[in-house]
């Protein structure tokens, strides 16, 4: 069926207008796609989310499914932080995404500076052997479809084991701090868009990450699950009591935060990290300064 654009009279000069209305994230999307596809290990690139459906706004993230040959998945995962830092412009190591649906792979979220703005880039690494299934479940646009060389059963099993191990590995204090920084970006976006329900869910995730950070720093050998027995395990020392007070402040804040609430939570978590696990900040001072500058400019 002809589109409205194709019916426009030839004398209408629409190209410039069309160009002006391209999503601002398109250059970043192109840059990351070119970067990733330079490796023969990458068999597929799918764009999903609002940039695939044409509903992107200036806050939209860049969301890829990256098909990686099963044989190369462990090496690719190990190299991903270096690749995204050196060539992708990531401020921080990737956050292992615990929001994304399980499609047999593993997701990472990177905060990337691009043209003076902080952008969110989601990379879901899927073993090439799973791509047919992933494509059935994910509505997206295919940017790259490169048939992989033969994938053996052993390689498939190795990739599955690799994904399972990564998913099961407990997060370090540094990873939990990065989780807070990523969630704060997501929350600012929800607040600006007025997405109260999603903001509520992500605010709860942020509090849970704070609880996990405290437990990882001060009660690593805890035998109790989740939120149980926190006071019994942590309130034994002044530092534990101060951290519990921080957690109390977090969970008694409004159910749906304002931007000021999110910023206060970040301040609280950075102070908590400095107090309970200062090594988690090693090498991140400049990144956190830059992160806050970009948030102020947003």
């Amino acid at each position, binding site marked *: 069926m002809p589109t409205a654009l194709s019916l426009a009279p030839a004398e209408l000069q629409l190209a410039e207008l069309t160009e002006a209305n391209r999503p601002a994230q398109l250059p970043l999307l192109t840059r990351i796609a070119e970067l990733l596809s330079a490796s023969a290990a990458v068999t597929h690139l799918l764009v999903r989310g609002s940039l695939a459906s044409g509903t992107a706004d200036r806050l939209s993230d860049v969301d890829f499914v990256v098909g990686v040959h099963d044989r190369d998945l462990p090496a690719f995962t190990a190299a991903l932080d270096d690749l995204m830092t050196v060539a992708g412009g990531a401020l921080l190591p990737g956050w292992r995404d615990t929001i994304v649906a399980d499609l047999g792979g593993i997701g990472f979220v990177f905060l990337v500076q691009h043209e*003076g703005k902080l952008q969110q880039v989601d990379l879901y690494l899927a073993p090439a052997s799973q791509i047919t299934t992933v494509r059935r479940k994910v509505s997206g646009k295919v940017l790259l479809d490169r048939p992989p060389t033969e994938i053996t059963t052993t390689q498939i099993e190795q990739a599955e084991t690799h994904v399972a191990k990564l998913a099961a590995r407990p997060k370090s204090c540094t990873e939990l701090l990065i989780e807070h920084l990523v969630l704060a970006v997501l929350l600012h976006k929800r607040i600006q868009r007025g997405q109260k329900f999603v903001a509520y869910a992500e605010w709860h995730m942020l509090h849970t990450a704070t609880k996990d950070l405290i437990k990882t720093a001060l009660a690593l050998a805890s035998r109790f699950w989740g939120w149980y027995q926190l006071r019994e395990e942590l309130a034994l020392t002044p530092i534990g009591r101060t951290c519990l007070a921080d957690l109390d402040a977090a969970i008694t804040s409004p159910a749906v935060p304002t931007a000021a609430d999110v910023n206060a939570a970040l301040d609280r978590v950075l102070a908590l990290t400095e107090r309970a696990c200062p090594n988690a900040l090693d090498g991140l001072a400049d990144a956190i300064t830059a992160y806050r500058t970009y948030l102020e400019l947003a």
Partner: protein
Amino acid sequence: MEDAQPTAALSGQIVQLEKLDGQLIERMRHEALTAPAPWKAEYGEFQSGGWWTTSLMNASGEAGDVRIGDCTARPTALLGHMPATAGLLAELGLNYMWVRLARLEANAFLWEHRDYDELDQVERHRLHIPLHTNSSAFLVTGGTKVHMGGGRIWRLTPTYAHGVCNLLGPDRIHLIADVYADDAYTRLANRAKEPTADRLPAASEADLAERLAAARRLADLGYTGAAEQMLLRLFYSFDLPEGTAYDLIASLHTALGDSEASTRWTAAKAKLLALAS
């Protein structure tokens, strides 16, 4: 990293000169961020990409003419849009060879190099006035790291190998004035003061082996450019003997069986560090 302190390794390579009025710097910063500057990428062999310059005073009076050389500099039209900046340049009364604005984007680098190789007949000096900067933007020379903070004039004597980076951004913008030595310059230079600097840690064999293995992992996946950049970045993390990053890249390519690339990087090292051939 050791505490910030003046270090002997700097030995006059970078010094602080005149302190400038804070409000003037704010006006100059505003001008630099808003003037209609034709930013040009030049000196591509020295940089990662992301290094842009535009001229305020040069031989031709064209702001887009940015490849520097000996001349009697005259103002470009761009400087006409920047009255506070023009006022300061006039007030300093220096004999300008070339005056540029230099913008270094986030995640951009000027690789380890030596300047003025082709311009060694006349005494000249390079002055920097940081207008817009951040804590992840710094210069490395002699194994020390110096963040050139705003609010004053700095002098860089780029005869030693040095490099500049802006790891995380936002953009870093400096006014760079290459000036000939004269009485006005001497008066300014008499107020030179050593800046504080951070000594970079020495790299252990294990550090270098780990970084080389990470670079090899990237290269094996087909990300050769990223592998090279990762090794070039070591200059900004560790106190390394001169040219080590280039040697590591050449070694990487040798290990990958690409002798042509290895030779190319060895030649790049000789050119960028102005080594005798």
